């Protein structure tokens, strides 16, 4: 059961990561003129506002998945890391849980600032909130994978 939950948590995280990365790049000002030619251009020329509700739902559901996995981590993985004196591994997980908490806290304002019609006066706040969430999700995704594979990564 825990393996299924872990895989579902990972798949949700991949979806969230993709959507949020599209949106985070979409809030960068487009270069003047011309049609999108490069992969990056095409990647970021999305309607960022259309991603907001799915991202909020995915962030919450993925966080709930992580919260459900946490007891297994606390009982099995963390004591093993402590035995191995892998302080950095414990530290990056601590940071992950704090970042997810901060992310949950900004979701209401993130939703508010992406409401249509988009207010020009809020464009920079909208951009930085989106980037903050993107940083949180990238950290959570990468650290989750590192910790999931930690036995194979440590000497």
């Amino acid at each position, binding site marked *: 059961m825990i393996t299924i939950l872990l895989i579902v948590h990972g798949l949700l995280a991949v979806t969230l990561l993709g959507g949020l990365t599209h949106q985070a790049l979409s809030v960068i000002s487009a270069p003047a003129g011309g049609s999108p030619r490069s992969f990056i251009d095409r990647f970021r020329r999305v309607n960022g506002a259309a991603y907001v509700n799915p991202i909020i739902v995915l962030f919450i559901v993925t966080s709930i998945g992580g919260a459900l996995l946490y007891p297994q981590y606390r*009982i099995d993985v963390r004591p093993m890391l402590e035995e191995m004196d892998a302080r950095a591994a414990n530290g990056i997980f601590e940071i992950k849980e704090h970042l997810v*908490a901060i992310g949950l806290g900004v979701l209401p304002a993130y939703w508010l600032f992406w409401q249509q019609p988009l207010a020009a006066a809020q464009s920079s706040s909208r951009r930085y909130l989106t980037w903050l969430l993107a940083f949180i999700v990238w950290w959570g995704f990468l650290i989750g994978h590192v910790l999931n594979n930690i036995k194979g990564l440590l000497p």
Partner: protein
Amino acid sequence: MKTSAFKIVAILFGAVYGLAFYYDLALFRYYPETNRFHWQTHPDAGPVILWYGWLATAGLVSTAIALVVPRSISDRIPPTWVWLAPALTTLAMLFYEKRWFV
């Protein structure tokens, strides 16, 4: 809930969470080995998870404050504060947690 209150939640949630973490103000504690929630510390119950309790503390406090602040005030909160406060909280947290890497 008025939507401008969302700005207050965004500003306060991370900061209150940080205080709950630093001062051990978890609303409740979960002990996974016994599968029990407790208000108080139970050292004999095995390892504890405080994260749920910190989230609950941050959610309750920030939402309560957001609800009592008059709309005339919350509407005037500059949008910059809404991203700057959690960004600074993030930086402070990263600075504090470098203790794991020394």
